[in-house]
């Protein structure tokens, strides 16, 4: 579908069409409804975006005289060992947290798509954690992962002690700190669950009936009806999840900071340190653009791969 196929009166190359009063009204409505976002974006988004491109080629530090450093910041990105460390930490989180959260959200949506009493209450209960702010969530999980008095070890201790395994130190242990964040990511699956629920309820019933008539059991119906019909939603969930996970910050800032041995030094945490603790805002801008390129690259790969797996025929 081309971007011009809406009845906007704008057609490439062709003569300008006279708009009907209804089309004019539609156009006015379009601008009225989009203007709050557009104005907000221009005022608070576009300016900083353009400025940050320029700043990434300088040694800008908010007060000092700014010097043009060309590709200096980008060259330093390559040689800074903490960039690679933070990228590795972030990638670990993305690789494990995104699929786990997506699977968790899908399973929860399947369960909450059943016709049982009080389903609305269950849906509300599972959605509630997602409205907790990142900082509050960080404080809560910091307590959960406390090795001595935290909930996680209180539950695990009766299982681990007979096996002779000592209490995990979670955020205080360089090897367990990142997995702890992956576990914590499941807390927010309520958001994905709502999207999957909407997707599940949009699957035509007749497809299940036809599959049932053909002798398909619940598992085959899931693999051959539910999954293909949900594939655009799964792609959306994976894409948004990846973008958000690459930007993990608030929880790490509150829970462990850089963590033992810099094991929870996530990329955005390091970016904030460079920009606002070390005053190196030019370098921070270069870091931000590197992250943008990485996310763009990963998203593009995802879309290329998705062409083979995602089924968009549901509406037809």
């Amino acid at each position: 579908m081309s971007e011009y196929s809406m009845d906007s009166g704008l057609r490439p190359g062709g003569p300008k069409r006279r708009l009907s009063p209804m089309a004019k009204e539609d156009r006015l409505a379009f601008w009225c409804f989009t203007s709050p976002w557009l104005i907000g974006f221009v005022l608070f988004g576009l300016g900083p975006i353009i400025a940050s491109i320029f700043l990434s080629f300088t040694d800008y530090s908010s007060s000092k005289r700014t010097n043009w450093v060309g590709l200096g910041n980008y060259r330093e990105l390559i040689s800074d060992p903490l960039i690679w460390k933070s990228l590795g930490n972030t990638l670990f989180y993305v690789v494990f947290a995104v699929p786990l959260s997506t699977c968790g959200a899908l399973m929860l949506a399947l369960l909450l798509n059943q016709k049982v009493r009080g389903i609305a209450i269950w849906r509300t209960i599972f959605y509630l954690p997602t409205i907790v702010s990142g900082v509050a969530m960080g404080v809560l999980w910091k307590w959960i992962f406390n090795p001595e008095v935290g909930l996680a070890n209180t539950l695990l201790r009766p299982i681990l002690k007979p096996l002779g395994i000592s209490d995990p130190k979670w955020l205080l242990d360089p090897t367990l700190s990142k997995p702890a964040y992956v576990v914590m990511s499941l807390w927010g699956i309520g958001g994905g669950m709502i999207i999957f629920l909407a997707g599940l309820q949009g699957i035509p019933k007749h497809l299940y009936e036809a599959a049932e008539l053909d002798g398909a059991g619940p598992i085959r119906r899931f693999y051959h009806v539910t999954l293909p019909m949900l594939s655009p939603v799964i792609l959306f969930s994976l894409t948004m999840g990846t973008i958000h996970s690459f930007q993990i910050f608030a929880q790490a800032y509150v829970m462990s900071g850089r963590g033992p041995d810099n094991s929870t030094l996530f990329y955005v945490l390091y970016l904030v340190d460079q920009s606002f603790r070390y005053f190196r805002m030019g370098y921070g801008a270069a870091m931000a653009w590197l992250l943008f390129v990485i996310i763009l690259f990963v998203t593009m790969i995802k879309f290329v791969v998705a062409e083979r797996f995602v089924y968009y025929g549901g509406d037809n």
Partner: protein
Amino acid sequence: MNRLSTSLLVPLAALTILAGALLSGNRPVADEQGRRVVVYAHPPCPPALMRYFDEAFDDFRKSHPDIDLQVLHITGSYQDKIKVMFAGKVAPDVIFMYPSDLAAWVELGALTPLDDLLAANSKTRVSEYFPAAVQTYTYNGHLYALPKDASAELLFYNPELFRKHGLSFPTADWTWQDMLHAAKAITEDTDGDGRPNIFGLQQPEWQAMVRQNGGRIVSADGTRCELDSPQSIEALEFWVALRQKYKVVPTPESSADMTAWRMFVLKRAGMFISMYPVVPVLRRSCDFEWDIALPPRGSSDIRSAFTGSSFAVTSQSRNPDAAFEWARWMTSEGMKHIMTFDIPANVKLGQSQAWRDPAVLPKSKQVAVDVMQVAGPPLQHPEYAQIIDAISPHLDKANRGDCTVAEAVQKIVPKVNEVLARHAQSGGGR
């Protein structure tokens, strides 16, 4: 570029430029009544203390009818917000500042030197402040802030626990070994699970121990890391041994993320080293007797580092004279409103009876003033945060027992030197 893109992008770009012009605000020099405007950015502050600051603000407004004092209450990260205000050229006239931030602010050109303003002022002389406090806020030979309070690390202890174990109270000539002896006696496993519940001591900051032993993080000329000196290594080894060998300080897991003072308040730690501003918290939270003493001696006469806070006039101030007057008043006459919470950096106030009210703890208030005689300036370097970040992961590793202090220091020194060299290359340095 097609017509749609052009028709959208041109107005958007124009709007961006217009917004930029509108938002790069200019604050007024005077208000509608012709009074000079002074904007002071106040840091996040507990309500119990804020009440006293509010009294001070009102008092200043009454005594200075020609100045319109406008207080910006900053919430969240003070530093970040001030930096953003600087970037937007709308920095306040006066900022609240800690010693560790001085070098970075000065090198950013964010502060106004106060020497001339102070010299021209007839109400206050530099000699009215504790010399060490003045030294702390002097950089490259210029005074950049007026000290509000002068604090230094002190040893806080629980006399009840000392009596219980037949220990004599800490004295001015206490050494690390005396502290260790007391900490060993106080450390106790009360529930018999093999893990101590009461600890003799909360692990002090490693920087404090290095200082007490005559070591330094960075050389005086700011060119190299000196954590590999014998004094520094000895201090760091003792610091690690408190946890790994003597087990008299809690591990992070056994302290359950509690701050030093909270462990002390819960009677789970017999001693901790902290700055004077923790005093109001202890007054509010402790239902038992507590007192202060000089920190123990390592091999150096310096036992503590100066800290405290100050008021600095920014380089973007449009009324530097009026801004200076606010800072001056707040560190002298105005300080009387808040001095139960701090040790006033103003010598006269620090020695006044009002501050020494015997009805409130700690009993040994004089120690909080005496400590200034054995305190040195803290590390002041524009790359302070980067230096500490380069050190911390390796020392944490040694503190966990995952490597020796010597191994940690071997990795730390080149990293810190790299930060120092990069700073020197960028034209910085003292």
